[in-house]
């Protein structure tokens, strides 16, 4: 991120006042953050030759065929062509064999790394994990988000919703205050999106890199001046589950581009 801007003035407190004053009740219809971007960034996402996220998709496609460590197996050896992953990203996080908790797509890929390839776990946010996640999720581009109808997920989605509505951090704000009550409004220049996880992993210009939904959530927590959850905290999975459920039916865009 750009140390370029470290000196900026904090508008946090003004912001709270502005938001409270602006709170509106009519819920806008659901739309991806894509529609809150200007034409130049939409064009960057739409054109595969211009979308830098496609560099990670390309790397992921190479990794998909690479044999690893002890098991000497590539993802392709078990799963076939990467196109077999069509639709998978649209229904994660989910319960999966070998875990008594719902797992995100990244965690599911890491389970295959450690259990099926007998290779090392890929670090959170590592280039390899992002590349594999990108190529898997890219296979669901243009497919509607379709969380599984699994009763075991319900308490986790409910926990996610509670977190979403919880006022927290030094600014005493909830996610809902921005992303439901003030979505579509400008926060001194930036349009507040509805926070639908349609583009993940996204190429975020601010990161100059591809990153996960978890990283995006962490950014909003830092923005609220709340203590971000520990890297492996269940709260991230719960929030992801709630956001995916809330975005049911919206189309995946992976790799999305965001400012």
């Amino acid at each position, binding site marked *: *991120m*750009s*140390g370029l801007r470290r000196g900026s003035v*904090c508008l946090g*407190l003004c912001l709270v006042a502005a938001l409270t004053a602006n709170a509106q009740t009519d819920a806008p219809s659901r739309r991806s953050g894509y529609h809150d971007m200007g034409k130049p960034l939409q064009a960057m996402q739409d054109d595969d030759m211009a979308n830098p996220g496609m560099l990670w998709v390309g790397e992921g496609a190479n990794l998909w065929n690479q044999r690893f460590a002890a098991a000497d197996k590539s993802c392709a050896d078990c799963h076939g062509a990467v196109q077999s992953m069509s639709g998978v990203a649209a229904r994660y996080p989910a319960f999966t064999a070998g875990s008594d908790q719902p797992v995100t797509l990244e965690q599911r890929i890491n389970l295959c790394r450690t259990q099926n390839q007998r290779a090392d776990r890929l670090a959170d946010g590592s280039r390899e994990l992002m590349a594999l996640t990108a190529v898997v999720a890219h296979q669901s581009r243009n497919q509607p988000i379709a969380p599984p109808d699994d009763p075991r997920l319900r308490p986790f989605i409910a926990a996610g919703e509670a977190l979403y509505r919880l006022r927290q951090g030094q600014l005493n704000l909830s996610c809902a205050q921005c992303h439901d009550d003030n979505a579509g409004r400008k*926060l*001194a220049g930036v349009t507040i999106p509805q926070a639908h996880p349609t583009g993940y992993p996204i190429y975020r210009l*601010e990161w100059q890199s591809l990153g996960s939904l978890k990283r995006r959530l962490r950014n909003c927590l*830092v923005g609220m001046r709340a203590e971000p959850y520990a890297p492996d905290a269940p709260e991230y999975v719960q929030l992801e589950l709630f956001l995916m459920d809330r975005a049911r039916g919206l189309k995946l865009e992976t790799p999305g581009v965001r400012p």
Partner: protein
Amino acid sequence: MPDSRSTTGRRVFLIRAAGAAAALAFARPALATPDSLQAAIKDVVGDAPLREGRLVLELPPLAENGNSVSMTVSMDSPMTEADHVRAIHVLNEKNPQPHVMSARLGPAAGKAQVTTRIKLNDSQKVVAIAETSDGTFWVAEADVIVTLAACVEDMPQ
């Protein structure tokens, strides 16, 4: 209003309004100033006059993040041996260095157009200069307002 930097050191929903004179924490060197922009222009053209009109610099008037701003520079030129664009330079006013890029092209390019993406650390003026085969320099300018992203991280990962 308290400035959060002093308490937490974090950047929180820092949305700098266009052109606000926030002190930018570039370590060094000093920011490219309009003076250094003038010097950089002189580096490129010497004392030759700058002409306006044929060179086109396309930049969005408002950039949603200064880390990557799409830019196209083009000039209507037959791109023949006798009449072509030799070089296209791009300079800026407020990045740490005034120079952004220089492209060399010639009749083999067929069309005088370059597209790339640039970093702009603040709202500022960008200047493009084209040098044609007859030794003439053409200039075009654009002003870009840069919005700062919200919900950013404190440190590089």
